[in-house]
């Protein structure tokens, strides 16, 4: 990180051994349970239930993946497509909505702006289990049961408030002079938002995009309540098909978990490029 004053021995120590040590520890910690799940997904049933525990499978098999993906009864390919669609749309729409709202709240003066902000947060303070019944009757009345809309709209209820707040914080940290000069240069306010603020806020927007995608990807309550057909289930709901009354199908559940990490990982590898120092510094000089 702080690769500047390399003369400082403390800094060199922090940037060297400490950084690598921390990196390895953090990564092992994050990965540990996944390793366990992955191993479970490539074991045979006998290996899975061997006592004492058998960590490495003697006959690694990808049968669970094939089964999970192609099964007609628990079609993970279909769950996967559903999740991908719901989460992507949620992500894009959340970004548009909250960029507008975040910008307005950061830049304009409103009567009761603080109260408004607090109301945004207050919507997060209510347990979802109690929101679910009124929401269900609402979607039912609108004929949205078993549709992607119901899931996407419901996802807004937890993505939008946070992303708005997050972006307000982010926009606040961008100097006002930048867009003012742009506006004098002939861009309108909206043009300034698009051309100056959004690129500058790219790291913040990328982070909130990841947030919106990931939290709708792992959403479960709405996904089970607002859909009834197996082919409308999302991955997170589909995973629970592997949890039986007396036994968890760890092989297929593990395979499902591993499959479900792939798109998020790809999206993240793409978006994390924006999690680097934005253009703020250069723009300030210019």
């Amino acid at each position, binding site marked *: 990180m702080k690769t500047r004053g390399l003369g400082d021995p403390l800094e060199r120590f922090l940037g060297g051994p400490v950084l690598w040590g921390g990196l390895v520890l953090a990564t092992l910690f994050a990965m540990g349970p996944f390793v*366990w799940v992955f191993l479970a997904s490539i074991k045979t049933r006998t290996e899975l239930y061997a006592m004492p525990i058998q960590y490495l499978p003697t006959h690694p098999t990808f049968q669970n993946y094939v089964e999970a993906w192609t099964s007609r009864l628990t079609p993970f390919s279909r769950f996967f497509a559903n999740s991908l669609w719901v989460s992507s749309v949620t992500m894009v729409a959340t970004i*548009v909505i909250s960029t507008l709202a975040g910008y307005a709240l950061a830049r304009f003066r409103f009567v009761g702006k603080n109260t408004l902000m607090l109301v945004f947060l207050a919507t997060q303070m209510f347990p979802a289990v*109690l929101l679910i019944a009124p929401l269900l009757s609402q979607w039912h009345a609108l004929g949205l049961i078993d549709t992607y809309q119901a899931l996407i709209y419901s996802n807004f209820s937890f993505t939008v408030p946070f992303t708005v707040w997050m972006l307000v914080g982010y926009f606040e940290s961008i100097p006002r002079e930048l867009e003012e000069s742009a506006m004098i240069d002939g861009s309108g306010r909206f043009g300034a938002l698009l051309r100056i603020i959004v690129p500058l806020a790219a790291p913040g927007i990328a982070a909130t995009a990841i947030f919106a995608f990931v939290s709708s990807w792992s959403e479960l309550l709405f996904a089970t309540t607002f859909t009834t057909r197996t082919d409308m289930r999302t991955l997170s709901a589909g995973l629970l098909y592997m949890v039986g009354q007396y036994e968890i199908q760890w092989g297929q559940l593990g395979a499902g978990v591993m499959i479900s990490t792939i798109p998020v990982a790809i999206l993240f590898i793409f978006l994390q490029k924006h999690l680097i120092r934005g253009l703020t510094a250069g723009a300030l000089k210019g």
Partner: protein
Amino acid sequence: MGNQNATSAVPAPRALLSHATRETLSNYVYLLPAAICLGGTVLFPILKAIHMSLYYNVLIKPQEYRFIGLGNYVRMVQDPTFWLTLRNSFTWVFWSVSLQFFFGFLVALILNGQFKGRAIFRTINLLPWIIPGVVVALIWEYIYQPNYGPLNDLLRRAGLMREPVAWLSNLNLVMPAVVFTNIWRGIPFFTIMILAGLQAIPEEIYEAATVDGAGVIQRFWSVTLPMLRPIIVVSTATRIIWTFNYADLIFVMTGGGPANATQITSTYTLMQAYSDLDWGYAASLSVILLVIMLTFTALYLKLTKGVESVAG
């Protein structure tokens, strides 16, 4: 209301009749989509729940449905389990969020460095966040299982343990165990948010600080932390709220047990609504939670000066 928009410093050449008004309106238009989203999905159900909390509304006794004013709230004050869950909630939230934040911050600082394979490391560190809470709970329940889970087995093979430890059945260990799981799952959230925040700090400020002779520690305290304040405030405040309301993990891992040792107010609410089918009481519990958190958030934002930027 004269000069609504502080940034439009240039006076309009022709004073249009309703310039200011139009501008105010157009400002609100920016908020409209967000307002619609939340109005449609959250506000109406919340109002409904507040209404519900004033009724005796036990689903299996529809014939006794009636208005009881603050009856549910009176019952809550006299309910020792409620107070217990509130205490448990504070423990759960405090340790979960503070440690998630601390480690998330550390990991963000590490991942902000420049090294080979950064994208891969960043991605791996994100993984715990992307599986549903219920599945996280099942995985960790398996890990903690005293007789056939890998944790005890590894500890035993390493010679660090003799008697199997029942992590989730021991009154003193169960809360730390579920909190630990929650920390595992929550670190990536803070990592990502703080990583984004770190990018917004202009290089010049660091350079200026270095020129002034500030070491790495001083730069952290005098530049990084203050500049990150808005992001920190927002992410911790929302995280606290979510953790308060987060029931999945505990519900699956321990069901609030053993002996209510991990019963937090949100799992208790869930149980009141879906086991006891007492929706009036469940609603009043949620309303109280809302009030507690609203008070807390207002105070928190006031103390931390909210998200106003340092520069003002």
